[in-house]
C-alpha cells in the first residue's frame, strides 16, 4: 500500500491534504472535526494583530456559480480574516496542537506592513507550538483596502521585505501565500524566495463578481443592494492555479522552492495533478465547504489506489513528474501531427462536433454522407485542434490520433517528419536560429 505521509518544509502530516486558511479552520471546534475526519493538516484561519476584533458584513458573504443540477462550480467570498479575539484563537491553536500532535498545524497571519506588527505577533504564535506560519498576501477583498492581503502580494518588494522580517523573527517555517491577481506569478514567487521563504502556497482567491441581480442591478453577493468584488475559488479556478504552480516550479529562479498547491482541489485526482506539477502537498477549502469534511476519505483512498496502480510507493515518486513537460509554446514539436478520429460505434450522432467545426473552426467534419446522418473527419481539412473532442458528450468517442512519421498529412500534402522541430527553427520565423552550416 502506498505511503502518503507528507513532509512539507519539515512539517509532517499523515497525508498531503490540508485544509486551507478559511472559514473551516477558524475555530477549534471545526478543526477538531476536520482532524477526526482524517485531514492531514490545517492552516488556521488568518489571525490579525491584537486589538478590537475584525468586523464582517452581516449580509451574505458568499456568491456562487453552478453547473448542471446546481452543482457548485465556483464560490466567491467577501469574508475577512478571523473576527475572533486573537487570544482566543491562540489558546485554541495551542490546545489543538497538543491534542493532535501528528497533524500539521500552520497559522495564517496578516498584520500591517510594519516590522513591529510582525515582531509582536510571531512570538505569540510560536508559543502555541504551531508547526509554521503562512503569510496571507493574498486576500483580494476588504483587507487589501487597508494595505494588507493582496495589497502586499501585488508588490514583490513588500513580499520580500515582510518575508525577511518573519524569517528574522521566528524559528518557524515561513510559507508565503500568493495572490493570483497579478500579471506574472513568477515575480512574487521570486520575491518570496529572496526574502527567505521556506515555501510558497498558491493560489489565493481570484477577484471576482459572480453575477448581477437583473431585478435590482446589484452585484452578487449583494449587501443592501450593493456588492464588492470577492475572492473566487472552487473547481472553476483550478486551471488558473495549475498553471501558476507550474510556472513557479519550472522557473529557474524558483525551481525547488516548495509549493503548497491550492485552487479548486476537489478530488484525489486534482491533488495528484497539482503535485505532479510540483506541489509538495495541497490545501483544500471549497470542496470541504460544499460537501463537508468527509470528502478527505475519498481523497486519501483515491490517491493511494492510484499510486498503488502506478507503482508510486511514496509521494516523492510522483511529485514534480509533470513539471519538465511544461514548456514554452515555441518549443512545442511542430512535426507532431494529429487528426481527429470518430469512433462510429460510440457516436450518438448529436452533431456537436460537426457544428462546432463547421461554424467556428475548419469545416473538417461531415454531417451527412450518402444521404444519411453521419459524422466523420475530413482529414484534408482537419488541423487536429481538439475542439471536437472537447465538445463531444461521449467520452472516448472522438480521439486525436497522431500520424506516424512517414505518413502523409492530407491537409498539407506533406510527409510527417520523424524529427522534433519547433518554432525557433521554423523557416517562417523571422527570428529563426539558423543552424550552423
Amino acid at each position: 500500500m502506498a505511503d502518503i505521509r507528507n513532509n512539507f518544509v519539515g512539517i509532517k502530516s499523515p497525508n498531503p491534504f490540508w485544509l486551507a486558511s478559511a472559514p473551516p479552520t477558524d475555530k477549534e471546534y471545526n478543526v477538531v472535526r476536520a482532524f477526526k475526519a482524517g485531514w492531514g493538516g490545517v492552516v488556521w484561519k488568518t489571525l490579525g494583530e491584537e486589538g478590537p476584533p475584525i468586523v464582517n458584513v452581516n449580509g451574505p458573504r458568499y456568491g456562487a456559480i453552478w453547473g448542471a443540477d446546481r452543482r457548485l462550480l465556483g464560490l466567491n467570498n467577501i469574508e475577512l480574516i478571523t473576527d475572533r479575539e486573537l487570544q482566543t484563537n491562540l489558546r485554541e491553536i495551542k490546545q489543538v496542537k497538543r491534542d493532535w500532535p501528528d497533524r500539521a498545524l500552520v497559522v495564517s497571519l496578516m498584520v500591517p506592513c510594519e516590522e513591529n506588527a510582525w515582531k509582536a505577533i510571531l512570538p505569540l504564535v510560536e508559543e502555541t507550538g504551531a508547526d509554521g506560519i503562512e503569510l496571507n498576501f493574498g486576500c483580494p477583498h476588504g483587507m487589501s483596502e487597508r494595505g494588507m492581503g493582496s495589497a502586499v502580494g501585488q508588490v514583490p518588494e513588500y513580499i520580500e521585505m515582510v518575508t525577511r522580517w518573519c524569517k528574522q523573527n521566528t524559528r518557524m517555517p515561513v510559507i508565503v501565500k500568493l495572490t493570483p491577481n497579478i500579471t506574472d506569478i513568477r515575480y512574487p514567487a521570486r520575491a518570496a524566495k529572496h526574502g527567505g521563504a521556506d515555501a510558497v502556497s498558491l493560489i489565493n482567491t481570484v477577484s471576482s463578481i459572480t453575477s448581477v441581480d437583473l431585478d435590482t442591478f446589484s452585484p452578487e453577493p449583494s449587501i443592501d443592494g450593493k456588492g464588492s468584488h470577492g475572492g473566487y475559488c472552487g473547481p472553476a479556478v483550478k486551471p488558473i492555479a495549475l498553471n501558476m504552480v507550474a510556472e513557479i516550479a519550472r522557473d529557474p529562479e524558483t525551481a525547488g522552492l516548495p509549493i503548497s498547491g491550492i485552487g479548486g482541489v476537489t478530488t484525489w485526482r486534482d491533488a495528484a495533478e497539482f503535485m505532479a506539477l510540483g506541489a509538495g502537498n495541497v490545501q483544500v477549502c471549497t470542496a470541504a465547504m460544499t460537501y463537508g469534511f468527509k470528502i478527505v476519505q475519498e481523497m486519501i483512498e483515491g490517491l493511494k489506489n492510484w499510486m498503488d496502480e502506478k507503482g508510486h510507493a511514496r509521494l516523492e515518486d510522483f511529485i514534480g513528474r509533470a513539471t519538465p513537460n511544461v514548456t514554452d509554446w515555441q518549443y512545442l514539436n511542430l512535426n507532431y501531427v494529429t487528426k481527429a478520429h470518430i469512433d462510429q460505434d460510440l457516436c450518438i450522432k448529436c452533431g456537436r462536433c460537426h457544428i462546432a467545426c463547421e461554424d467556428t473552426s475548419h469545416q473538417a467534419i461531415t454531417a451527412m454522407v450518402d444521404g444519411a446522418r453521419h459524422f466523420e473527419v475530413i482529414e484534408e481539412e482537419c488541423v487536429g485542434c481538439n475542439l471536437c473532442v472537447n465538445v463531444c458528450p461521449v467520452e472516448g468517442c472522438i480521439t486525436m490520433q497522431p500520424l506516424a512519421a512517414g505518413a502523409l498529412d492530407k491537409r498539407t500534402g506533406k510527409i510527417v517528419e520523424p524529427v522534433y522541430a519547433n518554432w525557433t527553427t521554423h523557416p517562417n520565423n523571422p527570428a529563426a536560429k539558423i543552424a550552423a552550416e
Partner: protein
Amino acid sequence: MADGRYAAGIAAGRLDSAQYAENFSDLHPPFDQHEALVEADRCYFCYDAPCMQACPTSIDIPLFIRQIATGNPLGSAKTIFDQNILGGMCARVCPTETLCEEACVREAAEGKPVQIGRLQRYATDTAMARGRQFYERAAPTGKRIAVVGAGPAGLACSHRLSMHGHEVTIFEAKPKAGGLNEYGIAAYKTPDGFAQAEVDYILSIGGITIENGKALGRDFALADLTANYDAVFLGAGLAGVNALRAQGEDAAGVENAVDFIATLRQADDLSKLPVGRNVIVIGGGMTAIDAAIQSKLLGAEQVTICYRRGREHMNASEYEQELAAANGVVIRHWLQPRRVIVENGKAVGLELEYTALRDGRLVGTGEAVTLEADQIFKAIGQSFDPVPLNGSGNAIEMEAGRIRVDAEGRTSLPKVWAGGDCVLGGDDLTVSAVAQGRDAAESIHRTLVG
C-alpha cells in the same frame, strides 16, 4: 373496499370515491422548476437535431429546451407555439417514445432520452397559466373561411388563419370543441379540463367563431360552405367505427371503445359510470389501450386486450403496452373474435380463434378459446364516413377510404382543403393533425392573399 367491487355484469361504483380521483389523476405529474432545469440540462443541443426531425410539427426542440434551461420558459413556449399551437396537448398525448424521444441521441447513448414531452408541458403550462398570448392578428383581409370540425386539425388551421387576418367560422357537430382531445384521449393524460382550457387559449386570439351542434351533411352541405365562404377546411376526423364481423356483435355489452372513452371523458361523476367485471378489448392500437386501462381504473376485475397479431405488430407503442401491463391489463396476442356468447340478449363471453401468419397472410388456426366477458369493446380502428360529403356537387376524390390531398392539404375540389385523420397520409396522431391544419392554413392564405 367499495361494496360494488365484484358486482356481476356491467355496474357502476366498483371503487371508493377517493379511488376514482387517484386513478384518474395526472399520469405524468408536471415538472417543478428544478426538475425542469435538471432535465433541460440533459439536452445536448444537437445540430440539426434528430428529435426536431422526428416531430411532425417540426418544433425547434433544442431551442425550446435551451430556453427553459436559461430561465426563459415564456420564450420556450413561443418557440413551441410557433410550430404547434396545440403544443400543450401534444406535450401530454404525443407518443413521444416513438417520435422525438425515440430520436433523442440520449436514447442511443444511454436508453434514457431527454423527457421532451414533459419539458414541453412545463413551458406551455407556464405560458398558459400566465395567460400569455404571443400572437396578434394581422390586419383584416376581409376573407371568410369555413372550418369543419373543431378538433386539433381544425383548431390549428383556424388559429393560423386568424393570425393572418382572416375570419373563421368552425362548424362542430359535438357540443364541445376539441375533437378527440375532448372526447377521445384517455382521461389521465389530460385531467382537470385541460382540453377546454387549451381551446379557450387558442380562441382568445379572436376572429374565430365556433358553431357547435352543426354537423356536415345533417345541418349543412359542403356546397353551402363553398358558396358562402372564400375557402373551406375539412377537419372532420373519423366518424365511422370498423365492424367486428363476429357473430353476436349486436348483443348488449358490446360497444365501441371510442364511445366508451367519450362517455368517460364527459362524465361528471366517474362512480356513476358502469363498467364490466370482466372486460375484453379487441384491438391493438392506442384506443384499445386507453379503453382497457380506463376500464381497469374504473374497477373492472379482469381486463384483457385481444389482438389478432403479435406484439411487434401492435400500433400501440411499447410504452403504452407496458403502461397497460402496469395497470393490470392482460394483453393476449394472435387471437381474433369469432362469436360473442350471448345469454338473455347480453354478452357473457367471447369465443376467439387463434391466428397465425402463413406465407405473410393472417389465418385462423381453427383452435378456439372462450373468455368470460360481460363487456366487450371494439377498438379495431375507425374509418372516414364519406356519406355527409355526398350531395355536395362534385364528388371529392377519395383514396383508401379517406380524402385525398396534396402536400399542401388541397383536395380535388377548388376552395376546399382538408387535414387531420380524415385525409390519407396521416398517422392518426394529434400532432400530425396540427401540422396538417397549420400547413393547410398557410396554403389557404397564399391562395387567397397571394
